[in-house]
């Protein structure tokens, strides 16, 4: 039962963060700012005034390497759990080094799509077909 990774899943309580301590961490490892897996993060160009830990620097470098990058991608590239990356990004945001934008999902919760989303779907379909 492996390969999916989910086979190793551990059920745990909210209060028990189990990820490895992050270098330079100053407080309980809970991100101050809420991130979604698909929140888009981008570097602002502002250099943090205080020295950062190695993981912070790596995360910042990833954010600076593209116009915007998702939290999921930063986590995957750094091979760190998304929960840890959210703490890193939250720290960086407090320093003004990165900014984040929540995902803006098309359609409503009903599952039906608005008229402009039909245009959106058509654009997605065209884009996919071009790759075929």
């Amino acid at each position, binding site marked *: 039962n492996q390969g999916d990774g989910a086979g190793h899943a551990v059920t745990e309580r909210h209060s028990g963060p189990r990820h490895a301590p992050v270098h330079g961490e100053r407080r309980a490892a809970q991100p101050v700012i809420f991130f979604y897996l698909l929140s888009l993060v981008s570097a602002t160009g502002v250099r943090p005034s205080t020295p950062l830990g190695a993981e912070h620097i790596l995360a910042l470098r990833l954010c600076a390497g593209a116009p915007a990058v998702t939290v999921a991608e930063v986590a995957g590239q750094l091979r760190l759990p998304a929960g840890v990356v959210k703490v890193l990004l939250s720290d960086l945001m407090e320093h003004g080094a990165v900014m984040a934008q929540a995902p*803006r999902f098309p359609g409503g*919760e009903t599952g039906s799509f608005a008229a402009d989303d039909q245009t959106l779907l058509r654009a997605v379909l065209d884009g996919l077909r071009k790759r075929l």
Partner: protein
Amino acid sequence: MVCASGCDSRPATLPATLKILVAGGFGAGKTTFVGAVSEIDPLCTEELLSGLGEGADPVDGVETKKTTTVALDFGRITLDERHVLYLFGTPGQERFWFLWEELCAGALGAVVLADTRRLADCFPAVDFFERRGIGFVVAVNEFDGAHRYTAEEVRAAVGLGPRVPVVRCDARLTSSGTGALAALVHHLLTTRSAHPAKTSDPGEPP
């Protein structure tokens, strides 16, 4: 939003976030599929996901709210400068059904990968998306040596409605996986009516 003045020149409004889920039973080829279609090296993101039991599928003796560490396959396809598609390969085991609630929020739709040698493994995913009205296609991952069933045989065995597309797919091939995604989006276009829908914007808490 924390942002020093003059920090960024990005447009104020980013394009819509486009998310497609890749579901299916264990070993159906989700990781392979995401890896084949993604333009970036397939990433595995470990995330703490919490689910609220909504009364659906209650499990005796199990707390209705819990958090689980789970590995998600993650991929990205940049279609053009305004359209970027994100893919999540979701845990296939039935006991993780509650995780899908969070992953499904805002998803365009889903590709359910089916392995004809273990067709029943895709039932939970099919049930889940059907119940929530999330558009999906069933992509039959044609494993070497597996018997080739017709689309109608698969449809009958899974109990799919006549409108759910069943497509053939080789999860190892980029073109095949991309074709399955295109079939999904085509399905969404042809089945979804143009009801005005409220725009769902979770917003970024300050």
